[in-house]
């Protein structure tokens, strides 16, 4: 990539801190629920923080602002990492997070658009997200609006056939306002993606479906910012897929790369170790 990002070192530092905050809050919230998705939330932390603190247009005091950029998680199980960010940017008071997974709480393992301000679409059924994004992007086209739809998917999600129905339609409908973000953390519930059901080569698949493809280190804030800032214009004709090379469980050494941490519950000692590592990390 030749263009450079228009971002100050201070802002990069802020986004890094927010990604840490997302990880720390994920640990706290999962300790309330006694079970949750660590690995796949940590692989997306920098992506969440970059989008919400630098890239996306939205109004926390007007969550349904029609011109806002949309963010949809095909991998809705990473919602626990996004809730703290939505609270932090002002969609709702942070105290509300304390109800996480309790009876009647707005905050479950997967996000509900009708209960949580700032959630653009309910998710949980893996493989739906990109189709939702196709619909949102068509809506923007019909209304002559310039917002983008950012759809975060896991690499395991690419095993769902519907993703490729959506990919085909996005290219056919010329949705340059649609951005697929693949959190390529290389693990699923049962094992390593490549061994379990190989979806490689990812880049070529998207290219062959008619997408513009960018590969980036999904934990490098500067590289992420640069990638998002240099997207083709929203009114262009080709959708973009950003393949993020990520590490499942990123930030906590004993979780990194381990599919066993997709869903888990840390004991007290491990929580302490994990918090220390995240706080001390870069």
């Amino acid at each position: 990539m030749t263009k450079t990002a228009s971002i100050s070192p201070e802002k990069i530092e802020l986004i890094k801190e927010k990604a840490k905050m997302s990880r720390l809050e994920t640990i706290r919230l999962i300790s309330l629920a006694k079970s949750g998705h660590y690995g796949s939330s940590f692989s997306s932390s920098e992506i969440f923080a970059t989008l919400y603190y630098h890239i996306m247009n939205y109004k926390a005091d007007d969550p349904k602002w029609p011109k806002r950029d949309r963010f949809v998680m095909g991998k809705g199980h990473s919602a626990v990492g996004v809730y703290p960010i939505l609270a932090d940017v002002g969609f709702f008071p942070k105290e509300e997070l304390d109800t996480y997974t309790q009876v009647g709480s707005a905050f479950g393992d997967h996000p509900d658009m009708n209960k949580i301000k700032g959630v653009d679409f309910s998710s949980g059924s893996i493989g739906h997200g990109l189709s939702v994004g196709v619909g949102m992007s068509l809506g923007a086209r019909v209304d002559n609006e310039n917002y983008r739809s950012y759809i975060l998917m896991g690499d395991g999600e690419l095993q769902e056939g519907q993703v490729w129905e959506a990919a085909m339609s996005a290219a056919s409908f010329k949705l340059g306002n649609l951005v697929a973000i693949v959190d390529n953390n290389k693990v699923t519930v049962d094992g390593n993606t490549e061994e379990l059901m190989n979806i490689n080569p990812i880049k070529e698949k998207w290219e062959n479906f008619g997408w513009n493809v960018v590969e980036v280190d999904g934990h490098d804030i500067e590289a992420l910012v640069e990638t998002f800032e240099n997207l083709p214009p929203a009114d262009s004709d080709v959708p973009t897929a950003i393949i993020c090379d990520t590490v499942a469980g990123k930030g906590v050494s004993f979780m990194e790369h381990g599919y066993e941490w997709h869903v888990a519950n840390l004991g007290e000692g491990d929580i302490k170790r994990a918090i220390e590592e995240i706080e001390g990390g870069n």
Partner: protein
Amino acid sequence: MSTTTFHPDTWELYKSLELSKQLTAGETLAKLGKDHPEIVAMSSDLSKPTRLWDFGKEFPERFFNFGLAEKNMVTAAAGLASTGKTPFVSTYASFLGILAAENIRTAVAYPNLNVRLIGTHTGIAMGFYGTSHHATEDISITRAMANMTVISPADGTALAEMVEESVKTYEGPIYFRVSRGREESVYEKTDSKTHNKIGKANTLTDGNDLTIIACGIEVNESLKAAKQLEEQGIKTRVIDMHTIKPMDTEAVLKAAKETGTILTVEEHNVQGGLGSAVSEVLMESGIPCKFKRHGFYDEYSLIGKPYHLYKHYKLDGDGIASVAKDLLDK
């Protein structure tokens, strides 16, 4: 979109589509489209057989053909609805209410979005195409979804009226279940009178000996049956229960009290469909009533031309009259 399907060389398809006069959603939406910019429509390579193309040709920028990808289409409709649009999605019921059921449940019903799904060629209207193209489970599937309204209009006028209502005043997701469109009509289309209102059953004939509660194309067949029964001195009340959910329970309970015998008729498996819905209302009311569900008795249809199949399964006027007679004689 190419217009080659309408080339004179393909006369048969052209003729076939011409026969689908009761598939009125597309033309209704075309009329409403100017005043309702929120209407968008989509099909999965069946825009012509569903006649949704009647809207598409008027508003090509608001019409999307998704190709053979129903799950993507339904979910994208949900995405469009989240931006304030009212999407109308139409394809064969076997590929909508059945194939895309999970997408309807999770992406449309659960978020309670204003998506209107129109499953056409339902029941056994596709005759010798076989079970893959039949839909005798879609009422059961969709009515099990919270937030979902389930409507099986008796004809094209009923479909047009309720599509219009769904654009102008109705909130929440709707599954419309319609036939192939070649059927006889029940309601006379007029500008001055609306015959069908979502959630309100229509009592089409008076009678206190027996009630037939039907939906979809079986309403007309039930009217034929009622006429036959009348010749035998049996006065039949025919109720068009076009809205299966939420059901007009008052009409059911009134019929139970006043006629003491209820026969439900549907082009659907008796497991979970209109008959099941009516029986739930009856059982919970405690009103004693002779009762039978008529439809497909937990079986897949034989292959055959629809006309012969309806006769075989006693879903034509003659058949329904004989089933009703047996019930009364029991």
